[in-house]
């Protein structure tokens, strides 16, 4: 019988599955691939760091003097916003990598391999987390040099790290979905700019109360504001932290994006 013959023929070539199934090995292989790609496209990495640093210097030294906030030093107000801007931009570039896999036919090859969808996409997501960890750390370092003086203890730093990680994961999985439905890398790139602009209409750079009424409403209820306010509360002890709202936004987006990505991966053929 054909099926038996095939099974016998393959037994010699394929290894036995490890105890936990193939997910871990598949994931590790894909992560290795994405990290290699990341190191071989240093321009993406450099942009992800240089852009937030330039914006921070711009806001602290150029606009900062004219902006009134509750914080004594504007740098203490703006750095949490810059951290999230940097993380958001870094996560969104994943859309471009996923889109180039889709147009090149690689995604179809992954889909014809006996590999779980999670593994094929995990590489991109973990690479994004690693890249963001590096760039966020560098941005915080530069912030120190410009006079950023957080009051946070170890616990608050840990909480901040966790929330930023969740924020990065939620945006990265969203970017994965965008990368799969966009018509190509260029179109996906537009998404990174949309994400870049979100923080401007939030509490990241100026207090929403200083905005016109319509923008104030948008700024108050969009996800970047509670996340920024919470990070700011933890790092410099500012009022207005909304950890539960921030958590709900990030976790909610993460779950929806993660499920959508798996569904898209199974359905979507390369165009």
């Amino acid at each position, binding site marked *: 019988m*054909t099926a038996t013959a095939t099974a016998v023929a393959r037994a010699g*070539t*394929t290894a036995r*599955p490890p105890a936990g199934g193939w997910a871990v090995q598949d994931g590790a292989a*894909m992560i290795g*691939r994405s990290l290699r790609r990341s190191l071989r496209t240093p321009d993406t990495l450099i942009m992800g760091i240089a852009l937030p640093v330039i914006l921070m210097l711009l806001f602290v030294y150029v606009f900062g003097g004219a902006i009134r906030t509750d914080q004594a030093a504007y740098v203490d107000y703006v750095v949490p916003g810059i951290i999230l801007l940097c993380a958001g931009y870094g996560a969104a570039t994943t859309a471009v990598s996923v889109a180039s896999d889709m147009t090149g036919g690689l995604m179809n090859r992954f889909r014809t391999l006996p590999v779980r969808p999670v*593994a094929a996409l995990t590489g991109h997501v973990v690479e994004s987390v690693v890249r963001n960890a590096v760039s966020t750390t560098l941005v915080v370092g530069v912030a120190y040099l410009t006079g950023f003086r957080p009051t946070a203890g170890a616990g608050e730093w840990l909480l901040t790290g966790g929330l930023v990680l969740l924020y990065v994961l939620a945006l990265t999985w969203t970017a994965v979905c965008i990368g799969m439905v966009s018509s190509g890398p260029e179109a996906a790139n537009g998404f990174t700019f949309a994400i870049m602009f979100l923080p401007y209409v939030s509490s990241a750079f100026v207090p929403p109360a200083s905005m016109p009424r319509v923008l104030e409403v948008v700024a108050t209820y969009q996800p970047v504001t509670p996340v920024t306010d919470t990070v700011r509360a933890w790092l410099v002890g500012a009022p207005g932290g909304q950890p539960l709202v921030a958590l709900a936004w990030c976790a909610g987006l993460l779950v929806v994006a993660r499920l959508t990505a798996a569904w898209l991966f199974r359905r979507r053929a390369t165009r």
Partner: protein
Amino acid sequence: MDAPMIETRALRKAYGSTTVLTGVDLAVGRGQVLGLLGPNGAGKTTTVEVLSTLLRPDGGTATVAGHDVVREPDRVREAISLTGQYAAVDELLTGRENLRLMARLAHLPRAAGRSRGDELLEMFDLLDAADRLVRTYSGGMRRRLDLAVGLLTRPAVLFLDEPTTGLDPRSRSDLWTVIREVVAGGATVLLTTQYLDEADALADRVAVLDHGRVIAEGTATELKREVGAAHVELRLPDGRAERIATDASVADVRRILADVEARQLPVESWRVATPTLDDVFLTLTGRPTAGATADAPVLVGEAS
């Protein structure tokens, strides 16, 4: 006889209101090479995508290596490899790294994966370029690497979707050589192509696909016989072309040319023409292939 390794019955697929497959019936026996021949838009790629579990059919059945593509996609994936129209390799990895990555994802034991990868690099003449980024490869090298990646697991069934489209003649014949080696290894192959000569060179049997269904099937020789034999074509000064049937053997062509010389016909140029895909199409469907009218006038028409 063995059950077919690839079998479709009344396979149908539509995208919205556009019907791509109207009922495809195919059967490919173990170790056979079937050439699926047709113009752009005939449904070749869609057929391959259904068979390689990338697309769900709307109706009919398809089995590969004894497994239904809809009900047991994982079993099908274990038995197949797909080489598509776009080289599905990572530009930012080296050739060797591409092979290692795919070997791991195909769950080969590490040592076996490495030695198989090196073996394929050698077989596909890529050893010298193995440690260069694929970004620096030529089109032909990419296709060869792509095919090599597909062969890591020694798949029982191989889908080659227009493997040589867009390649220069030299790369094309190189690729034919390696495909022949793979076939000699016993794989069952479904090859799609727009070129009759490619099907002729590689396939045991040819199925002609048009508007989403198979309109003819047989060996390349049988198909060509249906279209008409080869002929010697004479170009005369008044622009007329005269055709004389031949079996294309040296002796026969010599006899014809000797006859032409004896009759002192004012021949401007001559050539031995064998039926092309366009001829096959014209005969089978009564119309030329979509590209043929624009590129090269079909000569069958003026011969009568």
